[in-house]
């Protein structure tokens, strides 16, 4: 009886959906990307600004090509995080591209840098690695690829600001252990392969203390030459 009442209510709702364009829009979710990515925002924030969980990365403003590469890698399972692997499994390329473009074009402000829990010496070591590298150990400066202001370069190199230390060290660790890989040649694997555990802690901590630059947008493609080739950044 109850069920039948619900059923006829549903019929009325359905019928009224065809009763003119206005009713139709009223009974449909908004035809926007924002509504389509509501499955992502509890973890990544409404505009991709990140959430309080230190392992959930900011997406906003990163180069669209970079974000798209990550979505392809999650969909195929090459980059592993089961909740995301599951969500993306049956979504087509053009849709993933549209999601990447959506988050790339959002520009919420970068978060306040967090006070660091590591010593001054460690921060200094991190700064040295990021800005000058360590030629003796074959480590190029992070800025040589991620840009002098660490804001990344279109289309494939992400900025490194606005990320928490826990996230950055987890990613560098994943490259060292081979659980995260990028398009070949995977230059980040070469870089991460030369880093020690202590290097990772230091550089991740220093990056997280950086204030937002005046212009956080990634620089255009070809602004500077990379020290060696990266599959995700075609020349």
């Amino acid at each position, binding site marked *: 009886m109850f*069920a039948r*009442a619900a059923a006829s209510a549903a019929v009325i709702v359905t019928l009224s959906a065809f009763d003119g364009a206005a009713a139709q829009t009223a009974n449909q979710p908004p035809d926007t990307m924002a509504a*389509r990515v509501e499955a992502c925002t*509890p973890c990544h924030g409404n505009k991709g600004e990140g959430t309080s969980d230190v392992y959930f990365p900011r997406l906003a403003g990163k180069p669209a090509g970079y974000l798209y590469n990550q979505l392809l890698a999650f969909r195929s*399972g*090459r980059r592993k995080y089961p909740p995301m692997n*599951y*969500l993306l499994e*049956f979504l087509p390329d053009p849709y993933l591209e549209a999601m990447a473009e959506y988050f790339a074009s959002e520009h919420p402000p970068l978060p306040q840098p967090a006070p660091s829990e590591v010593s001054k010496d460690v921060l200094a070591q991190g700064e040295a690695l990021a800005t000058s590298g360590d030629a003796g150990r074959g480590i190029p400066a992070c800025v040589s690829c991620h840009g002098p202001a660490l804001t990344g370069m279109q289309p494939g190199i992400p900025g490194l600001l606005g990320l928490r230390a826990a996230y950055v060290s987890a990613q560098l660790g994943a490259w060292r252990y081979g659980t995260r890989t990028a398009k070949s040649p995977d230059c980040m694997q070469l870089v991460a392969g030369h880093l020690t555990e202590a290097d990772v802690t230091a550089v991740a901590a220093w990056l997280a203390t950086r204030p937002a630059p005046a212009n956080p947008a990634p620089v255009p493609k070809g602004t500077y030459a990379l020290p060696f080739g990266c599959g995700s950044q075609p020349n």
Partner: protein
Amino acid sequence: MGSKLSITLLALAALITAAQAQDKTQDKSSDVIARGEYLARAGDCTACHTAAEGRLFAGGRPMPTPFGTIYTSNITPDPETGIGKWSADDFYRTMHNGRFPDGGLIYPAMPFASYTKVTRADSDAIFAYLRSIQAVNQKNKPHELRFPYDNRQLILGWRTLYFREGEFRPDPAKSAEWNRGAYLVEGLGHCSMCHSPINALGGTSQSDAFKGGLIPMQNWYAPSLTNNREAGLGDWSIKDITDLLQTGVSARGVVYGPMAEVVHNSLQYLDDADTRAMAVYLKGIAEASSPPPASSALPNTESSLLISLGKTVYDKNCASCHGTQGEGKPPHWPPLANNQSIEMQSAVNPIRMVLNGGYPPGTKGNPMPYGMPPFAGLLSDNEVAAVVSYIRTAWGNRGTPVSAREANELRSAPLN
């Protein structure tokens, strides 16, 4: 002179006819290949025979089973590692009888128990298509099955119990459309591989076909396709069924989990006539009478506490999409009121939906689907149980409450 000319003319004419004939056979063989490709889609061969980021039909995809891992075969025309040396007879034997060319037994993870219904002509078309694709030289991975399941002779026992060889036989009492639908659903579609209770031997018995069951290792419940209290489609309109099969969403509900895969790789490619035929058949096999309503294992007081907490959780987290009355905004935000897939005796699917969220598959008819966030990290076991109990019983829904323990157990269900 004159006769010479006429002979030349005749010869020319013969040449032309020969050329035309050749054109025709070429035409015909490309038609057959196109048909074979279509039928391979209907059989969803790619779901198993193509690995993630792997080459088309080169195999190597792991299939976890309760007995160990089976790896699918390379079915490209490579002569060493694929099926390049097979004849159409060999291929038909595999499809129809589950045997390798040398007579060896094939594991029923390859759904030959359904493909046996496929006609010889359709099998030949699929074979012609498989011969036309890029050959890939990639050795088959050996299966990793535990003793004694690594002994193929055991398959004989399974075959005796569950395998009935034989092509599809149309039912003359039914329409051509119904029979076409039956052919696709029972044969290439191998729907009964999931939509049947799975017994300890990993078999589906004929009499239980389409009665529903929990898919081993994946922890998804594939509902009965005959019972209107599960996914029986007796009271669905044909349009809602064809929408669901072709686009993955409909005014009555959406597909998710393993069924999203089926729509994504296979059903979205079927033409309107075949989709409609399947809908007519599926609507036809739904049983008229529904069984008595399910009963809950939970004591009444606990249930009513759960349900009132559930309403709070629902209004805060779910109503923005599914509506305060569970009306949703169909087809993209599915209705939860009068939605069979929530009310079933097994609560596995709605619990997993809340924990894992999901997107329906991106299809030609719905290329940018709307999604649902996963709530595993946002809600406690108790809250998950409460909200699922609420949606199963609110708005006239006739499901039963679920316990926090059931919600907790499904947190570790595999996501791929």
